[in-house]
């Protein structure tokens, strides 16, 4: 499905209710979720398109806030898909990722120095002794 400019504007409006601007962060539409974001999401989750299309039909010119409230109350599954799309597209924006301090599931090689010995952490457990019920076999 190729969403046209009008449809993208409506989706952006709905997403802005979920993710408005604030705290120095852009809104969903400012982060381009209905443009490049939508295309990137649909590339990996094409099945979302059908649900977004039905949401567009339901929106039918009504205010975004009302549509969101109705989805939340009467169509929680569709709401879940819209929310997943909005948030996923938002976090695919490189600026947003930078601003929230998340660079992806980047490799963090394991430090070979054990951190379980710090502050006598384990000694405290050992001092409390064995806690299992022996079975005597």
């Amino acid at each position, binding site marked *: 499905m190729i969403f046209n400019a009008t449809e993208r504007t409506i989706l952006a409006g709905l997403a802005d*209710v*979920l*993710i*408005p601007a*604030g*705290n*120095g*962060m852009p809104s969903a539409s400012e982060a381009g979720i209905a443009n490049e974001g939508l295309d*990137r*999401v649909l590339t*990996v*989750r094409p*099945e979302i398109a059908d649900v977004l299309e039905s949401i567009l039909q339901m929106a039918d010119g009504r205010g975004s806030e009302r549509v969101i409230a109705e989805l939340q109350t009467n169509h929680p599954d569709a709401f*879940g898909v819209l*929310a*997943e799309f909005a*948030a*996923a597209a938002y*976090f*695919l924006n490189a600026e947003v*990722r930078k601003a*929230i*301090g*998340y660079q*992806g*599931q*980047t*490799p*963090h*090689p*394991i*430090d*070979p120095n*054990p*951190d*379980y010995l*710090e*502050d006598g*952490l*384990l000694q*405290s*457990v*050992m001092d*409390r*002794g*064995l*806690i*299992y*019920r*022996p*079975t005597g*076999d």
Partner: protein
Amino acid sequence: MPSTYLDPPRDVLIIGAGPTGAVAAKRFAEAGMRIVVLEQGDWPDYSKARADHPDFELTTGRNWSGNPNRRQAPSDYPIDDAQSDISAVLYNAVGGGTVIYAAHWQRNMPSDFRVRTLDGIADDWPLTYEELEPYYERVEIDFGVSGLAGDTAFPPGKDLPLPPAPLGPMGRIVARAHNRMGWHWWPAPNAIATRAYRNLNACTQRAACMWGCVERAKGSVDHTHWPELVKMGVRLITGARVRRLSVNGQGLVTGAVYVDRDGIEHSQNAAVTVLGANGIGTPRILLLSGGAKFPDGLANSSGLVGRRLMMHPFGTVVGLFDENLGSSHGVWGQHIHSLQFYESDPARGFLRGAKWGLQPTGGPLSMTRSYPWGDNPIWGPSFHTQLRKRLDHSAMWGIICEDLPEANNRVILDSNLTDSDGIPAPKLLYRMSENSRKLLQFHLERARESLEAAGAKETVIAPLIRETGWHLLGTAKMGTDPKTSVVDAWGRCHDVPNLYIFDGSIWPTSSGMNPTATIAAMALRCAEHLVEERKNQKVPG
């Protein structure tokens, strides 16, 4: 063209290439037996593992879902779960469930083998912790298990092959709280390579263990076992779905009939057949194999095939902390575990207990989802503050509750639903018992206290979700009496002396632990016994 191809006969036919099949195949191959393995799935496709891509979180549910009804891959069979409180999750591939498991590697505790004796309910196992211990030690070497000896919840034992994963800030903050409260914790055991080990690479803590490990660092048997076994000459046939077992006039199993991906039927004969198809797949095959002679299913004179299904109700509590805990990363996997409330205390109003594993919470998209966050709103004006509160600032206890065996919790054959080969699908009848509900409630409350004591400013008890039936146990009970059990203490079917079941189906009780450590150790113990006793093994003439 013959309607059924006859594949060359073997000494042992194993059905299922998960950890049960892998561990058994290894032991048989070492003993020089000729082995064939039938697996309905394919080798996992790690090109779909996306942890090193920005769209990772978006793709997890699509590429690595544990629910076969959602995946609907050619390797999958549907499961009718409309009459079950919990949906089964599993993975049908070379590697079985270990391809997507979280790799929490938990031995059972000694009391798990003595439930009847100690708590007066359910059943004892026909073996003890001490008898199984050497087999735990051996499989732990093969799976590349990391962890630390000396856990006070277990009898003293040997070192594990690899050092434990870091506790991380998350593990340390909770560990300190438990020390203040006098509650148990220990660096958690995981089948995750914390250093390069055999053909596994060192983990890089991307918190992606359940959605395709891009690093080849997880001890899943498609890495730890099958490549080597194939080199040793084990014949592993993928895309091979077993329709039924074949039985001769003497009541011995002669092998299995399977359908390949082109829909062609094959007959695979073997002297001995071993089932490793898990707590749903195994009873399904037995129920399909009765024929006119055994209308209630093969090996089912006890009537227990498919009954006593146990799936471990699962609970989650998340804590939100001021401190940056780095909890978008780490093993997933568990950082620490606690067995403080594992043993029975009748004063609590229920029997048995649960294991807790402390886990990361993931990246930003995971902070917005209904699981584990429930109805706690993130959307709207508070989005940015909520996100900052959660991302890297949350820690999560996952709670595995022991489920007691109940005859009416069961796997049966569905009268309508079939898989893509027209083979009847399994149907689950499962209700969470009163004991399990009370147990779960108690543990959720204690886990909340744990996180609060660690300094959590808020805690969220996750809504119970259906898709948590990843431990499938009990549906072909092990025991000494053929009237009240399906297999003996070595996995041999009482009714069919050359048919064996090695997977979690044979568990008399479920413990409150992630089961793969014990499934693997049991498979090794049973396989070893078969090898030792092979001179006396009855086989078809």
